[in-house]
């Protein structure tokens, strides 16, 4: 199962490190990363393989999303199927 991690907000030092660290700690492999900066707004999208995640998905999601406040960003972790079903026929 793959999850889509999105990070949107004001650019600052260490965003990538924070998110990828959390993934590594929980044995989540990041398979793809795309990132762009639009008018100071940082926008990163990661595809992550969570099939071997060391903790339950809900917990992993809560862990990452809890960093939202600390970094002043908005972080979402969602199952990739929601995007596939909505945007692909």
């Amino acid at each position: 199962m793959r999850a889509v991690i999105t990070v949107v907000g004001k650019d600052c030092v260490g965003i990538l490190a924070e998110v990828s660290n959390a993934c590594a700690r929980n044995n989540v492999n990041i398979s793809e990363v795309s990132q762009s900066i639009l008018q100071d707004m940082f926008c990163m999208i990661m595809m992550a393989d969570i099939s071997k995640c060391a903790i339950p998905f809900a917990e992993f999601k809560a862990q990452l999303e809890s960093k939202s406040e600390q970094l002043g960003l908005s972080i979402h972790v969602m199952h990739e199927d929601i995007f596939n079903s909505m945007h692909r026929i």
Partner: protein
Amino acid sequence: MINTKDILETITMIQDEHLDIRTTTMGISLLDCCDSDADRACEKIYEKITRSAENLVKVGCDIENEYGIPIINKRISVTPISMILASTRGGDPIKFAKTLERAASTVGVNFIGGYSALVQKGFAAGDEALIRSIPEALSVTDHVCSSVNIGSTKAGINMDAVRMMGKVVREAAELTADRHCIGAAKLVVFCNAPEDNPFMAGAFHGVGEADRIINVGVSGPGVVRAALEKAGNCNITEIADIIKKTAFKITRMGQLVANEASRRLGVDFGIVDLSLAPTPAVGDSVAHILEEMGLECCGGYGTTAALALLNDAVKKGGVMASSHVGGLSGAFIPVSEDAGMISATKCGCLTLEKLEAMTAVCSVGLDMIVVPGDTSSDIISAMIADEAAIGMVNSKTTAVRVIPAIGKNVGDELEFGGLLGSGPVMNINKYSPAKFIARGGRIPAPLQSLKN
């Protein structure tokens, strides 16, 4: 990899535009719970509901968490209780209402629907007793919802039932006058009631349905409005296309949730109901979509045309996105549950007469409308008859959910709270239909019914 723009669009829909799955409803047949002893029947009902829906709320929450899409309600619909009541000898219907309430509390659902009777052509055993007990049943329970089907295109309109329902609606409000007349808000009177509707208060599990089934109702008026706003100054054809594309995306999400819920619960998938269901939250209003199309205020001339376009485009977009479509499917126009409708009513632009016209082209009918506390039962019956006639002739579902605000008048308001919102008391026409309603009998089925 999925396109960045698409990913951000989905997240914006959920975060900012109130996209959600309005309800995952499990339909449960109670036909195998019939028993000549009412207490034993109630025991069987409690056991079957709590066993079947044991994991319904948990699975809903898991899907919500995993996919990041809010599922607002988890609900249950059951076989119309009048049918179970028919097999018991002299059983007190209230026992059944209390059993449903107890089962709903045990499994933790928001509502349980099916305290219902289908009397479009006449009353069978159990029907009259159940209908007479509705006001008390709704006043002694919190989660039980009730509906009565009094007409259909095939059968015509049962005017004896119409007369009865005017009194039942009034009494339901009177018995709960201390709780903003909430009883009447949990009661729907239908013509052409669908048997797989996941939405409350009108959900029940039809007799042609499987033993257990999962039906999902989507939502998303905010998403449609935002898409139209982004499109700017385009013509009506383009508006219809934008609504179709948006409805397609919304429905795909509903289909995904329905498939997942069905797989995890081991219960067959029934239908996705393609409805635009508003909530009182700002930015989640059907009225605001109509205004986005270019009306100064919902209720003015042009409203019926705009709603007809919206209703049709939602179905066209949604129907390809789901393998089975059913329920009510269309745009809802519940006054108290829609911030735009509430303000249009308050400013005097949206009247009851206009709402009646709108019900000819929307998915349901006169919904969540607060009327003065001194409205007679005859007038309520006549409103029901008018709505049922629109449904009967146009081969569509229509419904009446009006709430007489006991002790209040035009200018006052009822506060239901939560998704039911708040409703200003609307002005009504007070000329008496009493003699017409007192006649009883049946309105014959229209020519439209003779399709064979």
